[in-house]
């Protein structure tokens, strides 16, 4: 069934129910009105029927009370023994307690004692022969326009008749209102033409009194009386007659208006019920539409949102056979297709990501730096090796322009870069080149070997270029050292052979010179020349000795020794020389520092370095001698630093070459020997110098355990 039709049918059904409720309300109200009138009529009849028994119960109650009082011990004793005042007080007490109108005792001697003290009087003595004196009865009395119910009972003392007690109740408005409450109907009493008492309001009482006055026959009847805006159903009954034989009429009145108002109230309640049914119908319609339509549409909408958020596995659960069901099925199908496509796409993405990761890992694992540039000359990617290699020079590589990149290179290297790029652009072929990077003025230069290649897209069109760089610094250093070592070795060997060749002639020259000295007199002018010859031969011998010391392989005698024992003789030795040059020696070393060295050779090292320093300071200065154990390192470090004139870069570079000297009378072998001894100890030596500020030699010797 289509939804629209279903809604129409249900709406019609609800409309029908509402109409039926309204019609039922109207018809039921009429029916209730009719039935109510009948019930009302019956109620009056029932009231009239039951009023006699009610009236009898009222009389009996009065009679029972009178009997109760007549049996009161105090009443009897006070009556018997002439205690009239006590009797009156007791009767007043009883009346006050019970609310009866009057209590009176007539004694056999004619004395009458009443609860009303002004009524106490003397009457005729009771005729004891009158047997009626022992009877009890109830009478109605009309006294001064007021109606009284009077119960009269005999009073006995030990079986002896002593008088009669009468108890009176006034049937006034108050009493009738109490009766009205019990009977649930208004009660009025009338004697002759007068309405004596009534529970009705003043206006209603007057209307009823008028009706009573007009109605002459005064027989029992049920009639309706309209009083002001009220309509009363009234039942009239003759209760009994007064002692004067006047009939006492009792009117029972029930206000129809009260009933009608109850009906109106019921009708309005029915109307409100109808309204509530209509409201409920509307609510049910809303709930129905919510349940059947809105919630399902909302379900589809929520499903669309879920799919839009990426969860393609969502399926609408409850699918009916109507249009919304068809829509839900189509929705589920669409979601399934989307899910399949998404899975396939995800598969490809995974593969691509895997491949990309693979390539990335390769690039990351390479020790060669790989950098890609775009055609605008900016770095797009750099692998880990490139970042490690160049990071300290450039910081962040990504986005770095070619201009800034080459700025860090030495001029020669820049030229190499541009030549290579030009060649790549011109010929399409790459060319290998070396570039040098320098960080700071004194840092070690990093040498990289690189080449450019073109980066092509799938259409073989260039969209960038790749720069690969390999660090060859170490290789260059080794090459340099090899070259230097070869050079030193050749010089040493050459010098050694020369020294060996000239040593014997020098010995001959020296011997002959000494002979000439002996044969020449002091004061002879030739003697001075001969002395110079001998002296110069001695100096040449010293040079030769040093040359041989440098070139000749010597045995070493290593031992562990306190550094102080090594350095102190050296300092004592150079003391006079340093003072002469106004140079202050500043030793600075750990007192307990132990070194494992050949002491004589190391003394030679320090002697050479300190002499070098002293001689570089013509105008005085300071020489710092330091020795310490480098923390967490296998090396002992030794430094000799002067505050002399310093050296040029070229001098520094060649300082350890044999025969290289800047002094006129130097042999050029001192520092070469120093380097050789350090090498012999397995250590290394560095020199740093700044022209005009001084030179610092720093050499490292391994500790014993590392040797």
């Amino acid at each position, binding site marked *: 069934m289509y939804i629209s039709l279903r809604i129409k049918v249900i709406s019609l059904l609800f409309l029908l129910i509402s109409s039926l409720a309204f019609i039922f309300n109207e018809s039921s109200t009429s029916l209730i009105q009719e039935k109510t009138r009948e019930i009302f009529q019956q109620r009056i009849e029932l009231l009239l029927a039951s009023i006699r028994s009610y009236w009898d119960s009222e009389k009996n109650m009065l009679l029972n009370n009178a009997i109760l009082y007549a049996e009161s011990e105090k009443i009897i*004793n006070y009556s*018997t*023994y*002439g*205690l*009239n*005042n*006590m009797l009156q*007080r007791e009767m007043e007490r009883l009346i006050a307690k019970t609310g009866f109108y009057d209590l009176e005792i007539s*004694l056999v*001697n004619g*004395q009458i004692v009443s609860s009303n003290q002004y009524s106490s009087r003397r009457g005729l003595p009771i005729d004891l022969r009158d047997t009626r004196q022992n009877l009890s009865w109830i009478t109605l009395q009309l006294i001064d326009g007021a109606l009284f119910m009077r119960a009269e009972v005999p009073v006995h003392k030990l079986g002896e008749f002593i008088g009669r007690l009468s108890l009176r109740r006034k049937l006034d408005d108050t009493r009738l209102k109490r009766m009205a409450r019990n009977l649930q109907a208004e009660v009025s009493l009338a004697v002759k033409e007068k309405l004596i008492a009534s529970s009705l309001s003043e206006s209603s009482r007057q209307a009823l009194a008028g009706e009573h006055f007009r109605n002459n026959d005064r027989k029992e009847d049920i009639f309706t009386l309209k009083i002001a805006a009220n309509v009363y159903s009234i039942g009239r009954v003759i209760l009994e007659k007064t002692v004067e034989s006047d009939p006492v009429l009792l009117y029972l009145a029930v206000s129809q208006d009260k009933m009608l108002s109850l009906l109106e109230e019921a009708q309005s309640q029915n109307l409100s019920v109808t309204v509530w049914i209509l409201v409920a119908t509307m609510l049910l319609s809303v709930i129905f539409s919510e349940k059947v339509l809105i919630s399902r549409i909302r379900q589809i909408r929520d499903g669309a949102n879920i799919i839009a958020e990426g969860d393609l596995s969502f399926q609408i659960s409850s699918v009916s056979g109507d249009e919304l069901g068809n829509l839900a099925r189509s929705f589920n199908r669409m979601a399934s297709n989307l899910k399949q496509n998404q899975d396939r796409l995800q598969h490809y993405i995974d593969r691509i990501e895997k491949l990309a990761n693979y390539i990335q890992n390769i690039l990351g694992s390479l020790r060669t730096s790989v950098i890609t540039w775009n055609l605008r000359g900016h770095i797009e990617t750099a692998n880990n090796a490139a970042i490690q290699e160049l990071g300290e020079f450039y910081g962040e590589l990504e986005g770095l322009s070619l201009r800034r990149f080459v700025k860090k290179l030495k001029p020669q290297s820049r030229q190499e870069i541009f030549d290579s790029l030009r060649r790549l652009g011109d010929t399409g072929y790459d060319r290998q080149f070396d570039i040098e990077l320098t960080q700071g003025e004194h840092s070690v230069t990093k040498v990289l070997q690189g080449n450019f290649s073109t980066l092509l897209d799938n259409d073989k069109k260039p969209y960038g270029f790749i720069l690969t760089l390999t660090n060859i610094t170490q290789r260059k250093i080794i090459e340099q050292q090899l070259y230097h070592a070869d050079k030193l070795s050749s010089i040493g060997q050459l010098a050694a052979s020369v020294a060996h060749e000239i040593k014997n002639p020098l010995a001959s020259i020296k011997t002959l010179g000494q002979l000439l000295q002996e044969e020449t007199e002091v004061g002879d002018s030739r003697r001075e020349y001969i002395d110079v010859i001998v002296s110069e031969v001695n100096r040449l011998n010293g040079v030769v000795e040093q040359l041989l010391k440098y070139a000749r392989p010597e045995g070493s005698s290593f031992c562990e020794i306190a550094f102080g024992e090594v350095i102190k003789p050296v300092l004592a030795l150079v003391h006079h020389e340093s003072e002469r040059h106004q140079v202050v020696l500043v030793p600075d070393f750990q007192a307990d520092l132990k070194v494992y060295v050949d002491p004589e050779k190391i003394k030679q090292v320090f002697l050479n370095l300190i002499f070098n320093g002293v001689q570089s300071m013509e105008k005085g200065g300071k020489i710092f001698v330091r020795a310490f154990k480098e923390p967490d390192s296998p090396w002992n470090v030794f430094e000799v630093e002067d505050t002399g004139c310093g050296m040029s870069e070229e001098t520094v570079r060649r300082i350890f070459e044999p025969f290289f000297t800047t002094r006129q009378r130097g042999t050029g072998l001192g520092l070469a020997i120093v380097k050789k001894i350090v090498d012999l100890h397995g250590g290394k030596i560095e020199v740093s110098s700044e022209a005009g500020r001084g030179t610092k030699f720093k050499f490292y010797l391994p500790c014993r355990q590392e040797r």
Partner: protein
Amino acid sequence: MFNKHILTALLLLLLQTVAAPLCAATRVFLASRLEFTPALLDMLRRTLAKKIVVNDTIILQPFENSVAVREASGSMILLEQGMDNSQLPAEHVDLNVCVDLVWVLAASLRVPDLPPADSLSGEQFAGLLQTLKEQSPDRYPWFESLSSRVTLRNFDVVFAEAASATGVIANVAKLPFWQQSDSIAFLYRAIEEHYLNPFSIESDLGLAMNVFAAEDAMFVSHWVPAEFLDDERLCRENMGKVRLLPFPVLNNKKFLRIRLRLYGLPSVSSRSVEAVELSDDERFIDLDYKADSDWIEKKSADKYDALIVGGF
């Protein structure tokens, strides 16, 4: 602001009224042979208030038995002289304060021709009764509380005194009631002659006083504080228009008297009690508690039966 002041004032007033009764009553326990009616208690209270200095209201509370006397520690106790005072709380001492109660015939001033004398002779009394009876033949001018054993004992004592004083010892059945020398015969004949209300036989002192107060009787005997005898105003305030007479038996001119002594803590004695010395008076016959108790215990029942059965 105004309401706040009113509320504060009301609160203070409330606190004052709540706190006041806590210290506004002095309880005095009573132990005596007598049946204390509300009227008698009120008279006694007024008399006692003049004898002891207390600012509080005095509340008199009769004991039912001597056991309760011991429970009255801390309160004052009025104990009839002659009663066993060993039952009193140990710390109680005699405060030297006495209240005398006398047994009188109260005569309404409405009695016609009531002589203004301080006493009546038996004959005068009979004459007055006769007059009243003639005026209201259906009513009894005299009422007594004859169900009370104490009353019977009072009649017995007063008759014994009167007889010993006049030497009359005869009990002649034919004589009028007022000439009888036996108390029971006297009463019986008075009932028989319709002067004394027969209902007296069933009445206690409370009812008797009510009957007198309701003016259903012109004469009734009961107990009053001795001060009432000489203070007409005090008597009128408490008893209305009455004259208090020695019971008119033969030529009796004496009142029966009992004495109540006040006991309490010594601290009360020094603080709030004014010692009053009472001297003996020729007008009174002091009752002997022990003798009376013995009589009541041994003879009252027979006397009461005789009053009902008669046969004199």
